[in-house]
């Protein structure tokens, strides 16, 4: 059966330790100075009323993915589970997808010249029944991943108990990565 993979980043549990980012680098052989994912830390407010927002920055696996639409060769494609992947054999590195992605998720690998991004570790882990590298190392369980159509899964439970938001929801790209917004620190609303 088709799986409905979802990833949830709970910004209240995230401590900005970047273990996820380090795990991603070593799992996926990401060269220096480029990132498939990182947690960007934004300090908001005026001293002493400060708060820190931890925002995951990565491919969000759009259902209506602009990167797939623009790709001239079909190198950017969706698997039957709806995960956006790149076939490096077909990719000519025209960078159309890099400019088209509204989430700044793609980059050119400076060594291989291939276009890369977060893959949910699909080929190396998820397709083998494992979790993405970032999820396994998160010390506070701020990252939850799984098949949301499976009612026994962690991700299903998390989605039920939390109020999920989607990045740049107004664009209508229907991401599969959701976040639970930070409520800690000062509030300005």
């Amino acid at each position, binding site marked *: 059966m088709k799986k409905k993979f979802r990833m949830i980043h709970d910004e209240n549990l995230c401590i900005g330790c970047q273990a996820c980012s380090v795990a991603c680098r070593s799992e996926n052989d990401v060269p220096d100075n*480029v990132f498939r994912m*990182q947690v960007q*830390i934004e300090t908001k407010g005026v001293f002493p009323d400060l708060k820190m927002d931890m925002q995951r920055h990565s491919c969000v696996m759009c259902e209506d993915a602009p990167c797939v639409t*623009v*790709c*001239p*060769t079909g190198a950017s494609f969706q698997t039957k589970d709806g995960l956006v992947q790149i076939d490096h054999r*077909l990719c000519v590195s025209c960078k*159309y997808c890099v400019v088209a992605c509204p989430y700044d998720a793609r980059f050119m690998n400076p060594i291989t*010249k291939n276009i890369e991004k977060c893959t949910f570790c699909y080929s190396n882990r998820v397709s083998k029944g494992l979790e993405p590298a970032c999820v396994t190392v998160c010390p506070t369980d701020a990252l939850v991943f799984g098949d949301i159509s499976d009612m026994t899964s962690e991700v299903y439970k998390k989605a039920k108990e939390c109020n999920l938001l989607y990045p740049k929801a107004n664009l209508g790209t229907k991401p599969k990565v959701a976040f639970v917004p930070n409520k800690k620190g000062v509030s300005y609303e």
Partner: protein
Amino acid sequence: MNNVWGSMAQYDVINWPWPIAVYLFLAGASAGSIIIALLVKWNRHDKEVATIWDAMVKAGALISPLTIIIGLILLILDLGKPLSFYWLLISYNFESVMTLGVIALFLYTPLSLVFTALIFEDVIKKNALLSMLYPVVSYIKSYSKYAKKIEYVLFFLALIVGAYTGFLLSANMSIPMWNSPILPILFLASGISAGIAGNILVGMLFFKSSINKESIKYLLMLDLRVIMLEIPLLLLLFVGMFYAGGAAKVSAIQALSVGNWALVFWVGVIAVGLVSPVVIALTALKNHDYKVKFILFNSVVVLIGVILLRFYIVYAGQIFTGAL
């Protein structure tokens, strides 16, 4: 964003750098020059007289294949993996504007070469080296009863090539300055303007003997109209971004006011490229004077304006995305 762990370098990269801007210019100029050559051929020479191959037609036949081929070479070299470019020709995604462009170019480029071969038939016949190609030319000529139809097809393809570069950019929802329906019309118009300027320049410099003053005047008039159209199109582009609000508004304000790219826009695109040709037309070339120096000067400023417009849109679009 502050206090980020790691490097932000990858987010500031200009993913489509200068070769793309130059390509966009060359593709526009190529399409424009063949459009103009065909218009002159059709409208200015109803009767099949000797002057049919006048300088404008020859110039167009020369510029069009040359610019598009150079442009395509630049495009391929700019790929991260230039050697795998052949995938663009064998693996299609019909939703992608780039694929549609590849198909149009695949038909347009050889057809523009055929046009050149026919226009320069005599030159090819007489030249020691080129005469080797003559059998090909005469083979093509055996289909001459279709010539007019092929010209229509070429004209239509040129319109597509001239406009698709605008669609190529406008298909990006992530870049407000590109994500506008104005861009294809603007690029087609300014490409036609470049075609006129290029044809006049090359025609006057290389094919003086067959210059047809009436053609030149007709074209200068046409160029003035195209330029007058470009000004409101640019206005519309920014007004559209402004009223879209949010990131698009921020992007528009920054692109028009911050740093060197704002300077390029106001001085290069507006003052040099659009205002100065209008001024020249209203003063030096008034009453349809035929002053060679001013006509050449006019062509040069128009071309500079068109090139800078492409550079401005490509760079300012990628730099000022309105992201906070």
